[in-house]
C-alpha cells in the first residue's frame, strides 16, 4: 500500500536523521513536571499494582522509601497497595528505565536531546550489578547507592557534561559497535569510550579529588553503565517517529515483568500488549530457570533502533546468550532481523557483516507476515525482589502484540480488505 510505504519511508528518514546528544544529568522531577509527590514511573506498558511481578513491587517499595513517602518497606508496600501512589509508564513522560524502570522525582536522569528534531528523552543512571533497584532490590545498600547517585555522582556528571556542551552519541555508538558492543548486554566498549571522553571534563569540574576518584571508580567498574545512556538515546531517536499516519513502524517496545507492549507510529499512543515471555539464557552459578522472573524493562528501546539483539553480529560474544549459538551464528540473528526491518542504518555498521548497517525500522507487517519476532538481548532478574540479576539471555517479543497492531492499522486505514 503506497500510503504505508510513504509513511514508513518518512519514519525511516526520521530515525536515520536523529542526532542524539547527551546534554545533562538532572533530577527527574526537574524535567518531568508530572513527577510530584507519590508519583512513580515504571518500565513497560501501563500496569496496576495487583498485576505487578515481585521485583516490580520490591522496587516500588524501595523507591517509596527512597523518596521518603514511607518510613520503611512495609509501610511503603501498604501505601502502594492502597492505591495511594500514582503509577505511570516511563514512556508516557519521554522517559525510559531499565528492568523495573523506577523513576521518581529526586532520581537523577540522563537528558538526551535529539538535535535534529528538538525533543528530549530521559533515563536514570545505571546502578551497576548485584543488588540493585532495577532488579527489585530495596535494602539499605540499594538506597544508599541511589542516594550517592543523587547527591554525588549525578550532579558531578551533569556538571561535566554541561561544561563540554554535551556529548554526541551517534559516533560513539558507531565506534562501540566496531568494538564488539551491541549496546544492550554488552556496553563495555561504549562505557570505556564515554569515560575517556568525559574524564577531562570531570577532572576539570571536580573540586574534590576523592569524590572524583569515586566517580571514576563507579564508571570504571560498571560495564553496563552506557546502557542507560543508549536507552535515553533510543527514546530520543524514536519519539519523533510517533504518529506518522499509516506508518507500520514500531516506535517503542517494552515490558513490565507481566506484559510486553509495543507502540506503532501509525496507531499513535495505543499500546498493543501481550503476556511477556521468559528469557532463554545462561544463569549465574547457583541459579536456574526456576529462579527467573519474566522479562522486564524499557531497555528494548535499543532493539527498536537496531541495536541489542538486532546488532548481534557486531557482538559475537553476546551470541553465546542463545545457549547453543556459536560466535559465528551471531550474524544469523542480525540477518533475520533484516527480514522484519525496512532499512539499514548506514552510520551504525557491523564490520563482521561487511559493514552492513544495523537493521532499522521494525515493520509490524513484516513481523506478522514472516513470524520472525524481534530478538531482544536481556538481563534475567530473580523473581523474588531484592536478589538481583541471576543471568542473561535472549527473549522474543510476543507475536500477539504485532498481530493486534496490524489489525488496528488496517482498521485505521479504513477497510483495506
Amino acid at each position: 500500500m503506497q500510503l504505508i510505504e510513504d509513511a514508513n519511508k518518512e519514519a525511516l528518514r526520521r530515525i536515520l536523521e536523529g542526532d542524539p546528544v547527551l546534554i545533562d544529568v538532572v533530577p527527574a522531577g526537574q524535567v518531568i513536571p508530572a513527577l510530584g509527590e507519590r508519583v512513580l514511573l515504571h518500565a513497560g506498558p501501563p500496569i496496576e499494582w495487583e498485576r505487578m511481578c515481585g521485583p516490580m513491587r520490591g522496587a516500588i517499595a524501595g523507591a517509596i522509601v527512597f523518596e521518603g513517602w514511607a518510613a520503611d518497606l512495609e509501610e511503603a508496600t501498604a501505601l502502594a497497595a492502597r492505591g495511594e501512589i500514582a503509577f505511570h509508564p516511563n514512556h508516557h513522560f519521554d522517559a525510559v528505565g531499565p528492568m523495573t524502570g523506577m523513576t521518581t522525582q529526586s532520581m537523577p536522569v540522563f537528558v538526551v536531546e535529539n538535535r535534529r528534531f528538538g525533543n528530549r528523552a530521559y533515563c536514570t543512571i545505571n546502578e551497576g550489578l548485584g543488588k540493585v533497584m532495577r532488579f527489585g532490590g530495596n535494602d539499605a545498600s540499594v538506597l544508599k547507592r541511589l542516594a550517592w547517585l543523587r547527591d554525588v555522582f549525578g550532579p558531578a556528571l551533569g556538571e561535566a557534561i554541561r561544561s563540554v556542551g554535551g556529548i554526541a552519541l551517534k559516533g560513539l555508538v558507531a565506534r562501540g559497535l566496531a568494538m564488539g558492543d551491541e549496546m544492550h548486554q554488552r556496553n563495555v566498549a561504549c562505557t570505556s569510550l564515554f569515560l575517556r571522553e568525559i574524564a577531562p571534563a570531570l577532572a576539570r569540574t571536580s573540586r574534590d579529588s576523592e569524590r572524583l576518584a569515586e566517580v571514576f571508580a563507579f564508571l570504571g567498574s560498571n560495564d553496563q553503565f552506557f546502557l542507560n545512556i543508549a536507552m535515553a538515546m533510543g527514546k530520543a531517536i524514536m519519539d519523533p517517529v510517533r504518529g506518522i499516519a499509516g506508518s507500520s513502524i514500531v516506535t517503542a517496545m517494552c515490558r513490565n515483568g507481566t506484559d510486553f507492549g509495543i507502540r506503532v507510529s501509525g496507531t499513535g499512543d495505543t499500546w498493543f500488549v501481550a503476556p511477556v515471555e521468559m528469557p532463554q539464557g545462561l544463569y549465574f552459578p547457583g541459579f536456574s530457570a526456576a529462579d527467573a522472573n519474566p522479562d522486564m524493562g524499557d531497555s528494548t528501546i535499543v532493539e527498536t533502533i537496531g541495536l541489542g539483539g538486532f546488532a548481534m553480529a557486531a557482538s559475537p560474544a553476546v551470541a553465546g546468550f542463545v545457549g547453543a549459538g556459536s560466535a559465528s551464528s551471531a550474524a544469523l540473528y542480525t540477518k533475520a532481523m533484516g527480514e522484519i526491518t525496512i532499512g539499514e542504518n548506514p552510520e551504525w555498521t557491523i564490520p563482521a557483516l561487511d559493514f552492513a548497517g544495523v537493521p532499522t525500522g521494525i515493520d509490524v507487517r513484516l513481523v506478522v507476515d514472516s513470524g520472525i519476532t524481534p530478538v531482544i538481548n536481556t538481563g534475567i532478574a530473580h523473581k523474588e525482589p531484592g536478589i538481583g540479576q541471576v543471568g542473561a539471555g535472549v527473549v522474543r517479543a510476543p507475536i500477539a502484540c504485532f498481530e493486534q497492531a496490524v489489525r488496528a492499522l488496517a482498521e485505521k486505514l479504513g477497510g483495506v480488505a
Partner: protein
Amino acid sequence: MSDTVLNEVRKGFYLDSVALMRLSRRIAAMPGIIEAALMMGTPSNKRILQDAGLLSDIGAAANGNDLVIGIKAHSDEAARAALAEAVSELETPRRRAAEQTTWRPRTIRAAVKAMPDANVALISVPGDFAAAEARKALRRGLHVMIFSDNVAIEQERALKEEARSLGRLVMGPDCGTAIINGVPLAFANRVPRGDIGIIGASGTGIQEVTSLIAAADGGISHAIGVGGRDLSQAVGGITTLMAIDALDSDPRTRHIVLISKPPHPDVARTVLSRVAKSAKPFTVCFIGAENADLPPNAHFAPTLKAAAEDALGGRTIGADAPISVPASARRSGIVVGLYSGGTLCAEAQLILARHGRKVASNAPVPGSRSLSEAGDGIDRIIDLGADEFTRGRPHPMIDPSVRDDMLRETLKDRQVGAILIDVVIGFGAHADPAGHLASILADASRDGPPIIGSVTGTEADPQVRSRQIATLERAGVLVAPSNAQAAELALAACRP
C-alpha cells in the same frame, strides 16, 4: 567420598563473560560435577562464586584481571578432569570455522534482497497462501509462476489484473509447467531451444507437445503456462493475451501453439482476434473442441499430437516405427485409463469417443460422461491427478503409487480389454516412474489385459525417455510414441 572444591586462577587472562558463561555451562555438565563457573576475579564475581560455594582461598586471592575457574565436584578426580577440560577449552583457539552457519531467507522480500536480479518467483505453497505470496513477489518486480492449486478464482483474477498493470506475468495458479529461456520450471522437460513458442493452460499438455517436438528434433523458444482457468470467463484470458503479446514480439519465436480446454466463447473470441493480428502462424489446440472459428494464420489441432505435428510443419510423429497389438493380446472389453497427466487423460477420452466409444471419466471432456454414469461397456478414463486423489498426498507424477491398487484391480477385471497409462518424466517428476510401474506389474498375473502407454519426456530429462521406455517394454507394456497413439492402440486391442 566428600564434595571437593577446586580453584585455578589464570593471571591476566581475559575472556568475554559471555564466552565464559557458555564454557561454565559445558564444564558444569561434565560427569561428577555439582557446579562450575569461570569468571573474571572481580569482587562482585568472587561474591557470586562464594555464594555458590565455588570459591577456595586460591580463587579468593585473584583480582579483576584474573580468570577464576571454580569447580565443585563429588570427587577430586571428577574435579581434576573438569579443570583439565576447562583449561584445554580456554587454550583452544575460539575458531570453529567448520561450523556451518548459512542464512536462508524466510520471506520473498529477504530473498530478493539477497538476489536482487531474481526475475521469477516459483510458488508452490498451500493454495490458501499462494495468492498472498504471489502478490508479494509481483510487488517486488518478479514474474510469478504459481504451481499451487486451490486458489480462489476471484483471487486469480485480481492477481492477474495487478500483474498486467505492473507488466508482470502470472503463470497459474495450478500451473504445472513452464520453460522460459530454456529453463524448465516445476514439472517440465529438458527440450532443445528452437523456434516454437507454446502457450498452455495445461501442464501435461505443454509437456506432451514440447516432448513430441523434441523427439522430432524440433525446438522450443519458450513455453508459457497460464493456468487451467485462464481462459474462463471469470479470468478472461489475461495471461494468455499477455503471453501472445510477448511471443508475438519475441524474435526467437516463429510459430506459436496455444493449448487449452475449450475456452469460454467470449474469451475465445478475444484471444482469436488477438491471434488474427499476429503475422506469425498459430496452432490452436482446444482439447475437447471439434473445431474453432480461426483466423487464416491459425490451424486447428484436435489432439496434442496433432498440435505438435502442425507446429513441426505437418510432419507425422511416430510414422517411422509403427507398432501394433499382437493378435494374441487382443480381447473385447472396455478401456480403462489410469492417468497421472490431466490433459493426457482428456486427449485419450477424445480419441476414444471419436471412434464411437462411450467414455466416462472423473474429469470428463465434452462428449464423455461422469464416472457416476459409468457402467457395462463404457470405457473409464481416470485422472489420478484430480483433487479427489491428491488431497493430502502428492500428485501421481511425484508419487505414482496412487495408481498401484487401481492397476492391480484393473488387471484382474475380466471386463477390461486394455489398460491405458501414462508415464510423465522430467523435472519435478518421480525419479523412475517406469521402474515403479514395472515393480507392480512384476507381481501381477500375466493373463490380464494388455497395458498400453507412452512416455512424456525427452532424452535430456533426468529419467531419460529411452530408458523409461525400455523399462516399460521389459515389463510387458506396449509403448506408443505419443499418448494419442497409445489411445489408438488401446482401441485396436479391444477389437479382436
